[in-house]
């Protein structure tokens, strides 16, 4: 860009002119050089953010990953095939049999609409790509865009250097990559982009006071709301931020003046209308209302009396309303997932279905280290710099960082929300440090030329005299520190690449393991099983499985499922959990009542795949027992211990899940030197090798026994 603008065009001999001006244009001014470098760097970051997420495509193939993305893919496919109106009104009779699910009203359509729009654009440009490729590459594409937004955000908060660093950090940060590799077609892929964009535009609006930026911010928020449930974070963070700003300017002289009051009042009223559920907004409203009353009354005593009456009145009315509402069930308490955010132990005690999801677990320290690496240490440093240069923008970033870090600690998947904040604040630390150090390093040259007049403004921390006295040591020290910083940053880059390629690029639908000779072994059992279902079962067959596999069965197997990953009906899931943990004859009645034709279980005993149904089984017992008290967890445990070997509880050895997992497993030798029926996932010899099925029959078992499908027999003829 810098090149084109600096060349004056003269019509007669363009080529000649261009050749003449080339050496000149190459000799750019410092500012132009800087711009060129910055744009080039950003371009490289843009590309890097995209290609670092392509490991999964190169390792495996262009495919949709995991569980939820299959639903997103299926709905996107439907959207492109049937159009928006049909999509909006889609009643899906293939899931949650026989209840069905209203798809249009129970999803966040932002992702699907985005992918469908990209697909339409590509087709308009005559790129005949399949919708699957668009879905696979949506997340990396938006990750690149996020990096660019991070640059602008960093620039807005600190300076363009911090922006560049932030863009670079977020482009490869594992915390973000974990949810945005190619094929990870999930809401978070676009939502993080929307989140950061909203925050950026908001900060921009705060800094400039411009209505157009705030409008843009509102649109960003709108997009975020359409894409992900995490929007509640924004709607709560923004008023919290305003509250902090108010507290900070206790005098609030400039807030109190009439026009500002009105403008902000309108703004908050508007926002409050949007988010009636958000308590912080109400606090703000009350605050402003009181302020306004104070302004009107103009008398301190009168105001205090007014305050006393209104507060007591409001509190009592509120308490009565709340009591009546709660008693009559009109006000429903917060959803469990939200509760577990405030109290991390809540779900564990009360809602097994939330506690059972791996991504809802509290975060371990190691995963912080794994996902943030050096950012974990740079984050506090960045906070330090932010506090040293407090402004509206840095306050916002600090608040964003602190709140999101708390949430990241509560729920492992919310590391994702914290990642942009951590990257930004770390970028501030890196940028400020490097800037200071380079200034020190270059200070001598400058002092030789023009004296030490310039560099002091940035290095506020140390006094001028000290710099002058310890110049040589400081220079060496600065060099050393600079080298150290680059070493750390390069370690970060290496770590990120390694994590991406090793940990986060597995599609989890195709499993890879190392063979005895170090070669890669691919287990493609899931797709084998789903393909079998698609090809060999009647089109209206109903498949019962644990809910984890529901989306995949409907998307890949094209068969009706009883429960799926949209865990909206706990009772239905509990019914399946009960069937799985009952004896075969009891389970048969349950399955008949649900018209189940096939039962699908995932079994890792042959391959040593540990996230199979036997390891998830206690959750089925808990969730089933939560609704049907006949299922009791202690029945499946021996002295509080979960076992599948000879010492296992008798009910465990004869429940449906055990039988279906280990049917005929006792005849199989899985490992050399071990007895037949040796379960490699749990490292024991199973306790019940002689399993007879009365009401079900084995229909299909995949190559590595990972997926086993059973057919439910019709009732006895005689």
């Amino acid at each position: 860009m810098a090149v084109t603008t600096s060349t004056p065009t003269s019509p007669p001999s363009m080529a000649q002119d261009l050749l003449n001006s080339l050496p000149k244009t190459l000799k750019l001014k410092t500012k132009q050089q800087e711009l060129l470098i910055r744009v080039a760097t950003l371009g490289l970051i843009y590309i890097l953010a995209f290609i670092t997420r392509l490991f999964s495509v190169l390792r495996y193939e262009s495919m949709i990953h995991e569980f939820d993305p299959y639903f997103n893919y299926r709905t996107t496919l439907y959207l492109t095939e049937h159009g928006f109106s049909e999509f909006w009104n889609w009643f899906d009779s293939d899931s949650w049999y026989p209840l069905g699910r209203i798809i249009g009203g129970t999803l966040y359509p932002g992702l699907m609409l985005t992918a469908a729009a990209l697909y339409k654009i590509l087709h308009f440009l005559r790129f005949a790509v399949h919708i699957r490729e668009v879905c696979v590459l949506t997340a990396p594409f938006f990750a690149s865009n996020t990096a660019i937004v991070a640059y602008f955000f960093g620039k807005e908060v600190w300076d363009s250097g911090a922006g560049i660093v932030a863009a670079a950090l977020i482009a490869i940060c594992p915390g973000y990559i974990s949810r945005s590799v190619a094929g990870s077609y999930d809401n978070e892929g676009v939502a993080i982009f929307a989140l950061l964009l909203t925050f950026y535009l908001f900060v921009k609006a705060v800094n400039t006071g411009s209505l157009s930026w705030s409008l843009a911010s509102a649109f960003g928020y709108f997009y975020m709301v359409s894409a992900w449930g995490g929007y509640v974070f924004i709607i709560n963070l923004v008023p919290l931020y305003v509250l902090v700003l108010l507290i900070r300017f206790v005098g609030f002289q400039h807030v109190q003046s009439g026009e500002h009051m009105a403008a902000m009042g309108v703004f908050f009223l508007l926002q409050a209308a949007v988010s009636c559920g958000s308590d912080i907004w109400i606090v703000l409203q009350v605050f402003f209302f009181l302020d306004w009353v104070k302004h009107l009354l103009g008398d301190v005593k009168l105001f205090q009396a007014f305050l006393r009456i209104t507060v007591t009145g409001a509190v009592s009315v509120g308490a009565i309303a709340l009591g009546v509402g709660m008693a009559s069930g009109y006000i429903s308490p917060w959803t469990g997932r939200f509760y577990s955010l405030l109290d991390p132990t809540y779900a564990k005690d009360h809602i097994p279905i939330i506690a059972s999801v791996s991504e809802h677990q509290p975060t371990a320290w190691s995963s912080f280290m794994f996902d943030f690496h050096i950012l974990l240490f740079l984050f506090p440093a960045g906070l330090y710099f932010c506090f040293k240069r407090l402004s509206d923008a840095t306050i916002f970033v600090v608040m964003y960082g602190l709140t999101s870090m708390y949430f990241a600690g509560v729920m492992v998947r919310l590391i994702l929300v914290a990642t942009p904040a951590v990257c930004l604040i770390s970028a501030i630390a890196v940028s400020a440090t490097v800037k200071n150090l380079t200034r020190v390093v270059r200070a001598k040259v400058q002092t030789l030329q023009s004296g030490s007049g310039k560099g002091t403004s940035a290095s506020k921390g140390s006094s001028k005299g000290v710099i002058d006295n310890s110049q040589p040591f400081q220079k060496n020290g600065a060099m050393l520190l600079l080298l150290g910083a680059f070493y750390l940053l390069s370690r970060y880059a290496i770590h990120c690449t390694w994590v991406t390629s090793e940990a986060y690029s597995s599609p989890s639908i195709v499993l890879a393991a190392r063979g005895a000779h170090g070669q890669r072994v691919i287990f493609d059992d899931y797709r084998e099983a789903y393909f079998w279902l698609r090809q060999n079962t009647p089109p209206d067959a109903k498949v019962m499985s644990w809910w984890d596999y529901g989306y995949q069965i409907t998307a890949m197997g094209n068969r009706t499922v009883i429960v799926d990953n949209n865990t909206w009906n706990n009772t239905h899931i509990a019914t399946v959990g009960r069937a799985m943990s009952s004896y075969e004859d009891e389970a048969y009645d349950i399955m008949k009542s649900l018209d189940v034709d096939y039962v699908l279980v995932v079994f890792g005993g042959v391959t040593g795949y540990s996230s199979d149904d036997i390891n998830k089984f206690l959750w089925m017992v808990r969730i089933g027992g939560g609704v049907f008290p006949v299922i009791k967890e202690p029945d499946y445990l021996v002295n509080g211990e979960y076992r599948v070997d000879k010492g296992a509880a008798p009910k465990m050895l004869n429940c449906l899940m055990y039988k279906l997992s280990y049917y005929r497993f006792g005849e199989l030798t899985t490992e050399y030197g071990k007895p037949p029926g040796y379960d490699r996932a749990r490292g024991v010899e199973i306790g019940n090798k002689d399993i007879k099925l009365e009401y079900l029959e084995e229909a299909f078992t995949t190559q590595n026994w990972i997926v086993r499908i059973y057919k439910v027999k019709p009732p006895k003829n005689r």
Partner: protein
Amino acid sequence: MAKLIFLFLTLIPILCTSFTPEKPSDQRILVLLDDFAVKSSHSLFFKSLQSRGFDLDFKLADDPKIALQRYGQYLYDALVLFSPTIERFGGSIDAAAILDFVDSGHDLIVAADNNASDLIREIATECGVDFDEDTSAVVVDHSGYAVSATEGDHTLIASDDFIKSDAPVLFQGIGHSLNPSNSLVLKVLSASPTAFSANPKSKLTSPPSLLGSSISLVSVIQARNNARILISGSLSMFSNRFFNSGVQKAGSPTKHDKSGNEQFFTELSKWVLHERGHLKAVNVQHHKVGETNEPSIYRINDDLEYSVEIYEWSGKSWEPYVADDVQVQFYMMSPYVLKTLSNDKKGHFFTSFKVPDVYGVFQFKVEYDRLGYTSLSLSKQIPVRPFRHNEYERFIPAAYPYYGAAFSMAMPNTICVCAVRTLV
């Protein structure tokens, strides 16, 4: 060439008759005998079958060439086992093969007798009927016996404990009990309350295991696939001697010239061989009121019409079935709608109802199980969707406060924004 065409033309009617799914009665029956003497001693029974158009194939039970199926096709529609003592069938037939034969919808008549073999007992057990385990025991009744020349033999029983009894039925053989866990098996000829099952030649040392009217003499089973099975504890019941003999029940003054056996087994065999009590349901239709095509999905609160045609096989043709107790369910885990179908006496059953205000995957279910009839179990799956976004009413009265709230919100906003604009 002309010859070939002629051959083909003559073959057509044969081919046509051989593929008549419309005709539910059995055609070809395999009769397995212990020895061919039974063929003549029980000829009246066989003759009655043959006169009704059945094609009987008599074989010795241990004939090494007998087979029920060839190339996966069953050769017979029904099987008559008049071979109580057979220990092992010839050819490829065994107990499992016979049960498979039944499970694929074919009918079976089993006659046991004194000293019935384990094989016959096993088949009976699999059908929900347990013969007395004491192999020497027969049914003895000291008050319900038939008066006969040889005084003191109370093993020949005159039973009149069956539906629409005319003359008593003579029975001589072993008793059985019904498996209580089997809900399909049904007593058709029951022993009297004074009967018991024991060896008449030896002294009773312990109370007999089968007692009174819990003893079944003849039982029938209609399997879930509508295959019908008849199990009798006596082979001689079917014999010409019993068919023709007169009967006088002990203590009864009336002496019948002819026992009820012939009529009993004629009617029973009609039922077992699907000449009677066979229903079919065809032409299941449902559609919205005012339309004729079947939709792929209903909307909640749609009005719909459901109809089905039910016919009964009279032995020769399909006659309209007339009943006022056929019900249809609109079912999702439990019936949301249960309606009795009206009929026009021509076999057409119909009703109309409103789809409940619940969405989900429903089924039209007709479960019609009546004694003596084949069970009808029809189910048709249909999803029910909620309203589309543009099918709701535009303005709902209950929502007026919200409309008001929205407007009262919007108005001051506009004013304020305008005011601020002018001020700033």
